[in-house]
């Protein structure tokens, strides 16, 4: 090898090494940004998503079609059995419907007798799950609703039956749903019929922990779990799941929502309580008493 070529090789090796060091440094800086200025980092992430999603949809389209085709073929195969099953279920549903109508009438009468003031029913907006980003470290989904649809951070997301998670990051046309199984997820709940309060703590497993129970003896596997509305982020009485006793002996939650097969989610429009920015308001009004110190319901 001539000295000129050898010098060229050495030069290019040095340039390559500097390049690698530079990219690694950028990675470290991005991680630190994510940790210490999470809001900005998540905004960058959602901006990346807005760019990546059209490409991702193109890649997903043939896969989704192929799986739909297979599912449809399997469904056709079982058409007769399904028909019989549906007829049977319909019979049962008719009986349940009758019971529900009677209960509704009875409930209306009782409410009227008690003059109960009902909270306004919650409205919702439905969206499609674009991707499920599940790894041993994070559990999230991305939906096709964003700030264009006036989605806000913190709103609850449900599938047809139970709570899926909360909105954590809103892009222009996409939003992230932090699943209740994610390690960052903490949901205050009420366990019925014992009326015990607890926190559902995600640990990335499919059965999140039921933690901070005051009287564990009062809670039994099979008890139903609802949001308590504590903290003001979620509305109360949303079904979350049922309590189960896991193999490790701890009480865990089996989510009512089918988190492994999410297709559509309902985002519940709910204005959380106003955030408390002045801690002394928790203790009492500041003196001298003025209009500013009076905490109103709408904050």
């Amino acid at each position, binding site marked *: 090898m001539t000295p000129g070529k050898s010098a060229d090789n050495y030069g290019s090796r040095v340039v*390559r090494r500097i390049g690698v060091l530079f990219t690694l440094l950028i990675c470290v800086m991005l*991680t630190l940004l994510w940790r210490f200025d999470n809001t900005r980092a998540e905004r960058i992430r959602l901006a990346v998503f807005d760019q990546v999603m059209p490409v991702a949809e193109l890649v997903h389209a043939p896969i989704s079609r192929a799986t739909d085709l297979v599912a449809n073929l399997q469904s056709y195969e079982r058409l007769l059995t399904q028909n019989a099953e549906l007829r049977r279920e319909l019979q049962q549903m008719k009986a349940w419907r009758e019971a529900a109508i009677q209960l509704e009438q009875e409930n209306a009468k009782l409410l009227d007798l008690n003059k109960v003031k009902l909270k306004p029913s919650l409205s919702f907006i439905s969206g499609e799950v674009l991707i499920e980003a599940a790894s041993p470290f994070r559990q999230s989904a991305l939906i096709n609703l964003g700030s264009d649809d006036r989605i806000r951070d913190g709103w609850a997301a449900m599938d047809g039956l139970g709570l899926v998670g909360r909105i954590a990051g809103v892009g222009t046309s996409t939003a992230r749903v932090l699943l209740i199984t994610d390690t960052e997820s903490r949901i205050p709940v009420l366990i019925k019929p014992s009326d015990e309060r607890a926190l559902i703590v995600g640990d990335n497993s499919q059965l999140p922990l039921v933690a901070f129970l005051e009287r564990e003896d009062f809670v039994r596997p099979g008890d139903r779990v609802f949001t308590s509305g504590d903290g003001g982020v979620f509305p109360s009485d949303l079904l979350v799941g049922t309590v189960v006793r896991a193999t490790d002996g701890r009480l865990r939650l089996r989510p009512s929502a089918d988190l492994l*097969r999410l*297709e559509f989610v309902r985002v519940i429009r709910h204005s959380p309580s106003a955030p408390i920015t002045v801690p002394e308001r928790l203790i009492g009004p500041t003196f001298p008493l003025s209009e500013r110190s009076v905490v109103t319901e709408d904050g």
Partner: protein
Amino acid sequence: MDERSQLLRATLIAICVLAGFTIVLLSMTPISSPIAEYYPNVLFAFCFAILIRDPDVLPIWTVTTIFLLRDFVFFEPIGLSAFLFSIAAIVTRDKRKLFAENLLREWASFTLILSAVMILKSLILWILGTSISDQYLILRSITASALVYPIVVGILWGLFGIERPLSVQKAY
């Protein structure tokens, strides 16, 4: 290196980057499959197998770029996996003759490096004060990735005909 071989190398790099991006995007398809629940790291399996066989077609910056995209779209700490897997790629590239002596050693090296990355990642997350996941899940992911690795090698051999690392072939 003449102009033609440079063009060929650039094309191969582009194909590898595209394949990496496609694997990332495919991993996010919202379809349920029993394998997906075990979180096998197919992306690193491909990167490791290619780096062992022909590191020229997968420069370190491409590994960083692919894993950075993965960090973004998997809602993981931005840059952390990209950093750790880039280091893993550098180690793999530098020690590839040692790792690729036979298939069994290659397989064991892959499992070892992946385990080291996952443990380091958990450790860094713990130091940064963020919540980390169950160790059982991480172990499950490592096991699933190790089981997937021979399939990845098989695909590389079946599609591209790359059977053994070139340097090792020459040595025999």
